[in-house]
Structures are given as structure tokens and as C-alpha cells.
């Protein structure tokens, strides 16, 4: 039966080429846009190297102090994290704990040429929580951090810029007026991975001044690696308890009274730093709603086209009804036909989307972007296409099944 439907579907598509083209065009464009957005989100949030353990990693990425008249919001400082987040390492569910700065712009000069790099100051544990792919050497240790050794891990691009791509191990780079010995070279990390991205990684203790040690609000982050995903809720609630404790010791109690923040997953972290008024669940719902809204116009378009196409086949439907086909069988047939169409559109969309992503990577719009389609995105795309296909077929199919056989045989419209 299904084979018969498929055969009819392909015949129908081949017969009305203009309609087929219009439908495919709409499906294709819609899916390309949705898949490109999905690929960017996937690239930023899904577990990719170096964040392969992101399903059991939490981070403290943002902190907000609030008083009657003042609000201060920024990344937390080392002083705060050291005092109030580090105790979390003692929890039984916590495997590792790390504090690192965010990636800051740093400038070097090489033979009169200016090089701008991202510089992140980290501790030794950072390298145990994240899973960097080393091309040369390895990470620096916690001991190197304690002894303030001037060592650095650099990425592939930095090696290219400073050493023309030749082995860099043991050689020296000068960044922001400080000299570091290269101990490791890692593969480039996309700029979108905000908790790990950088060009150069050096020990925290090599900072130019020790003033970072006392700050509450600065540009640091803490990463907490749990033993398993099941341990995350306990860590989150323990951090909230630490926050309440910290509220009693605020550095400027006259102007600031409360402290909000959280041990967050990547997605929650992005939400907290950008639209903190909304809980992550609501943001997810809003994103889903936006996607539906975006699909509304293409769906309406497809419904209109499908409706016209069905009416064109009134006599065929009349014959099938006269010979006893049930409404349900007719609806089924039409939905299958439409699914065939959407799937063809989805394949075309997939090819087009990969071209668009290729162009995005080459454009350098997102630094170090390695946007690509993977199986997960393909599945999302497939799900969106099926949803789209069923949605745009149901109403026209229902209208079709309501057709009276006698009228249909006469070729009359609904």
C-alpha cells in the first residue's frame, strides 16, 4: 500500500513541476535557516572537545550584587570564588574544581607586526576538567601554577602567527609585556565555547599584580566537575547556600545587600549572563515559540499550495471514493505524499545548509568557528521536516476527504 502511495506521490510531483518547485523551494529555505541556527547552537552548547564532559560540568559564570539604588553585574572575581565556591570541592559528588579567568585581549609585537590574542589565566585543574587535544607537549601542572612559572599553552593559530607553524615547544612568546615559555600546543577552540576558548593559556599566578586575589567582581569563572550528572542538583543547592553565607560578608554592605548567581550548565550560564530575568526553561520555550513563528509563514504557504493541488485532483479523488476508499485512507495517502515532498526538500536543505555553514566558517564572522552538520543536527532537521510536512498536509487532506464523490467526479471544487 505504502509503495503504491509512494509511486503515486512521485508521479504527481513529476506531473506538476511548477508546483513541485515552489513547494520544494519553500521547504528548502525554511529548513536551511532552521538548520544553520541549530548548528550554531549545537556548536556552542553540545559536548564538543574540549568540553566533552559538559553533561557533568557546572560553572559559576556570572554574579550580581544588588542594593537599594545600585546594581552591579559581571563575572565573579577570584577572591569571591576562592572563598565561597572552592568549598564545593569538598562535596562527595565533586570530582574536580578549577578557577580560571575569562579570555582577555592581549597584544604582542613581533618584528613590528601586531598580534592580538585572547589570553586566559587558569589553574592546573582546568586542564583535568576540560579535554583539550594536544598537538605538542601538554598542559602546565598545578605546581607550575603555585610557583608562578612563566609557561604557556597556545593554540594552533597562535603557533602559526608566532612561529610560522613550526614546532613551538620550549620557545618563548611575549604577550602584554610578559614572556612565557611554550609547554603545549592545542587544537583551535571555537570562540563560541565561552568557558574554554582562548588563544593562549597561562597560570593565574603570573598576573601582573596580586590585586585579583581579593576581588568579588572581576573576570573569572569557576568550573566544577561532578562525578555524574545525578550529582548536579546537590552542587547547585550547596552553591546557593554558599551565596547566602557570602551575603553576610559583602565588601560594600552600604550600597549592596543581596547577591545572586548560580552553578550553571553552559545553557543556564548563557541565559544568566544575558537575560537573567527569565528562567532557562522559559528561554527554551521562547526559542521554541520563535521557531514555530518562523515556520508559520512557510507552513501557510505550503497549505495554500497543497490545497490548490488537491483540488486539481478532484476527479481522481472522486474515483477512489466511488470505489469505496475511506476518508482515513485518503488522508493517509495525502500525508505520505506530502512527507515525500518534505523529505526531498529536507535533503536539498541539508546540502544547502552545509554550504552556508562552510561559507560562514570561511567568512571569519565567528572566530575559529568550526560549524558543521553532524548526525544530531541531521536528526533535528529530519524532525523539523516531518513536523513541517505533517502540519502542512493535515488541513488540505481533511478538506479533500470531505469531498462528495458525485461532486468530485464532476470535477467540481469544494
Amino acid at each position, binding site marked *: 500500500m505504502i509503495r503504491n502511495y509512494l509511486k503515486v506521490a512521485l508521479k504527481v510531483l513529476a506531473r506538476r513541476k511548477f508546483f513541485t518547485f515552489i513547494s520544494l523551494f519553500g521547504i528548502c*529555505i525554511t529548513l536551511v535557516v532552521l538548520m544553520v541556527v541549530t548548528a550554531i547552537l549545537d556548536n556552542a552548547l553540545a559536548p564538543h572537545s574540549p568540553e566533552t564532559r559538559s553533561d557533568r560540568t557546572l560553572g559559576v559564570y556570572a554574579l550580581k550584587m544588588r542594593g537599594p539604588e545600585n546594581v552591579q553585574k559581571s563575572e565573579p572575581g577570584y577572591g569571591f570564588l576562592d572563598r565561597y565556591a572552592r568549598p564545593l570541592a569538598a562535596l562527595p559528588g565533586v570530582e574536580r574544581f578549577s578557577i580560571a579567568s575569562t579570555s582577555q585581549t*592581549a*597584544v604582542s609585537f613581533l618584528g*613590528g607586526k601586531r598580534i592580538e590574542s585572547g589570553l586566559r589565566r587558569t589553574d592546573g585543574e582546568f586542564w583535568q576538567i576540560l579535554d583539550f587535544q594536544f598537538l605538542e607537549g601538554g598542559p602546565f601542572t598545578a605546581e607550575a601554577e603555585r610557583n608562578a612559572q612563566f609557561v604557556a599553552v597556545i593554540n594552533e593559530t597562535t603557533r602559526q602567527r608566532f612561529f610560522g607553524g613550526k614546532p613551538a615547544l620550549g620557545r618563548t612568546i611575549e604577550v602584554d609585556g610578559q614572556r612565557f615559555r611554550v609547554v603545549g600546543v592545542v587544537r583551535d577552540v571555537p570562540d563560541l565555547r565561552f568557558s574554554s576558548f582562548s588563544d593562549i593559556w597561562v597560570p593565574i599566578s603570573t598576573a601582573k599584580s596580586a590585586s585579583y586575589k581579593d576581588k568579588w567582581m572581576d573576570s573569572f569563572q569557576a568550573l566544577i566537575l561532578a562525578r555524574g550528572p545525578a550529582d548536579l542538583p546537590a552542587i547547585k543547592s550547596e552553591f546557593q547556600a554558599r551565596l547566602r553565607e557570602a551575603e553576610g560578608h559583602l565588601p560594600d554592605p552600604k550600597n549592596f545587600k543581596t547577591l545572586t548567581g548560580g552553578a550553571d550548565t553552559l545553557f543556564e550560564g548563557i541565559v544568566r549572563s544575558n537575560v537573567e530575568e527569565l528562567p532557562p526553561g522559559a528561554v527554551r520555550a521562547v526559542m521554541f515559540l520563535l521557531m514555530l513563528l518562523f515556520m508559520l*509563514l512557510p507552513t501557510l*504557504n505550503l497549505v495554500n499550495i497543497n490545497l*490548490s493541488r488537491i483540488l*486539481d485532483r478532484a476527479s481522481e479523488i472522486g474515483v477512489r471514493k466511488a470505489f469505496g476508499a475511506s476518508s482515513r485512507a485518503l488522508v493517509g495517502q495525502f500525508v505520505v505524499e506530502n512527507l515525500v515532498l518534505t523529505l526531498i526538500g529536507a535533503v536539498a536543505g541539508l546540502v544547502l545548509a552545509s554550504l552556508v555553514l562552510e561559507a560562514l566558517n570561511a567568512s571569519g*564572522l565567528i572566530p575559529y568557528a568550526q560549524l558543521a552538520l553532524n548526525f544530531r543536527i541531521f536528526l533535528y532537521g529530519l524532525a523539523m521536516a516531518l513536523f513541517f510536512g505533517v502540519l502542512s498536509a493535515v488541513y488540505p487532506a481533511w478538506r479533500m476527504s470531505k469531498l462528495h464523490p458525485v461532486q468530485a467526479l*464532476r470535477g467540481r471544487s469544494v
Partner: protein
Amino acid sequence: MTRHLFKLVWNRKRTNALIILEIFFSFLVVFVVATLGIYFWDNYQRPLGFSYQNVWKVSVDTKGTGEDSEAVVAARLKTFARLLDEVEALEPVEAAAGTLVSPYDQGGWTSNMKIDGKSIDTEANVVTPGFADVLGLELVAGRWFEEADEELGWRPIVIDRDLARAAYGDQDPIGRPFGKAEPPEKPSRVVGVVRDFRKGGELSAQGNFMFQFLGLKGEPSWFQPHVLLLRVRPGTPAAFEEDLTRLLQGVAPEWSFRVRTLTQEREAHLRLFLTPLVAGGVVAFFLLLMVGLGLIGVLWQNLLQRTREVGLRRAAGASRSDVHRQVLWEQAILTSLGVLLGVVVVIQIPILDLIGFIRPEVFTGGLVASTVAIYLLTVLCALYPSAMASRVQPAEALRYE
């Protein structure tokens, strides 16, 4: 005639309702893109108030926080003053200034002032006297800041024309008190008016702006400079940056410096705004193309089904252009209903004051542009199908069963 057309539309209400809905959503899409486009274009046309050419920006990270004691802040200001002196002495530097925010910065400082009982929101900045020379501000009344302003018992303020108009109307703002100060704070007074200053650059809206004097030698103020701006001689090579950075590092080894030209900052800033706009525009274009093609298909199909009706009209003496006109008018009615629905929804924005930054002219412009665009699109899409329909031979059409 019109009543008859409406009747024809009504007779096929279920099919037409879907088409109207599609036109309605297309109208919304075009409206959003057109309004944003007009908004940014309108902003782009207005005077910037400063020149970004040959200006270098040094972002200074002083590693300070709001928790620092007064002595620490005083020492920091002193170091900053030394930086400024040393930089001004450099050969390619024509002028230099310290400031809290620089043009094209993402963040900024906005302030709410009470002036003559009016509550006025304004963007604000604190700057050293060199600022006007570095950025080429144009003074239209009064004077700019001087080094000697440090000794004054009150705080000098320079405002832009927009703020002058908002705060003082037609009266001369020079010498007028600017807001109320609590006793330990010094009172503020307007000393000059500049033509314009749009910190956000070409794409930002024109708005109020005030400058507050920043002294580095006297008592430490609440505001500390984070940026060093310098105007360099035209043709200064990029290599000067290395000398500059070494000098700055030498004076303040504990601080971090990042040098960029204002031209680079401007490009990055424009890209940040234009990229999403262009991406949205491209997506909207493809959506409309899809809608247009879809409409052609649907109209064509609908007219094919009405072949007998068309044939009858032709047999009864209607000319080809009569048929043509009928189809186009029907389409125009559908479009009008869709657009009407769209206007009813969109008009809520100014009525409920949903989006404050859209000026009435921009809103009207967006409304007109999107209405015209949608009529054009739908009529264009109806042309080909209606030409096909009018070509029907009466005899053939009536035979058709």
C-alpha cells in the same frame, strides 16, 4: 461592481481566508525589516558630531574595583595624569584625553537629571579637557573645559544641542545650574554647548548628551578614566603602536593596555549591528520570494478551476481587459484585507507605546513602505495568472467540463 467583487471573494471564503492570512504574515515580516532598515538609515544620515579618523583608542585596565580606598584611587589618577603627559609629549601625537567611555563603546553611562522640575534622561561621559580637540567636537555656544576648571568651586558641564533644547527650551543654557546637588557635592553649571555627540556612532539614535569635567590632579572623583584617546598626525604608521605600548607599560607596569584605532572600533561596531540586520533581510527576502511564487501557483490553480465562469463572462461580451481587471481587483481586495489586518496589529505599537525608540516618522515610513511592497508583490504575482485566464476562448471554456 465593487459589491459584486466582494461577493465573489466571499463565495470562496475558505480558500481566500488562508491567502489573506498569508498576506497578513508577509506584511508583518516586511514591516519589521522595513522599519528597522529605515530606522538605521535615518540615523546614518544624521550628523555624528565627532570625527573618528586618525584617532587612536587605548583601553586601560587599571586592575581597580569599586572597593578601592580613596588613597588607592588618588594614586591611580596620578599615574593616569602621568600617562597623559608622557603621551602628549610624543612626536606623532597632536592631542590626548582621558575619558570614561569612548565612541563606539558597547557600554555607557546614562543619567537621569531633574532640571526645572523636568525629569530628563541623558547619556553622559566624564572627560579631560583634551577630549574636544581629539574628537573635533564643534562648539556652538559658551566654552569647552580648561585645565583651570580644576580650581572652580563648582562643576562645569558641557551639553549637546538636543539636551539644551530638552532641558532649557529656547532659553540660553550658558551659566544655568544643571540639576540639584546634595550639599557635600559641588553644584553643576552649564558652560558650553556642542553641536552633536552620538557616542553609539552612525547607527545609534540622536539623543541627549552631557560631558562632565574630569580633573586628574585634584581630589579624586567618583569617576575614573578607562580610556586614553589620542589624535595622531595623519599618516602615522601602525608601528607607532609598539612604541606607544612600551611607553605606557614603562609608566604603569601593573596595568594592561590595548591599542586600537577608532576606525577599527567603528568597523567592528558597524559589523555587530549590520550582520544580524543583513542576515534577517536575506531570510526575509527568501520568505517573500517563497510567498510570491506560492501566490502565483495558487492563483493560477484557482483561475483554472474558474475557467467556465471566465468563459461565460467572455461569451456575454466582456473584453479580455475586463477579465484581467476583475482578477486584479479580486487580488487587490484580498491584499487590502490582509494589509488591513496587519495595520490593525502594527498600529498597537505606537498606541500602547510598546517600542519606545521608534520615532513616529520612522514608524509611518515603515508602514507605507511595507504596504506598498505587499501591494506590489501581490499584484505582480497576479499578473501572469490573470493574463493566462483572460486568454481563454469563450467557446472552449464553455465546452470544458
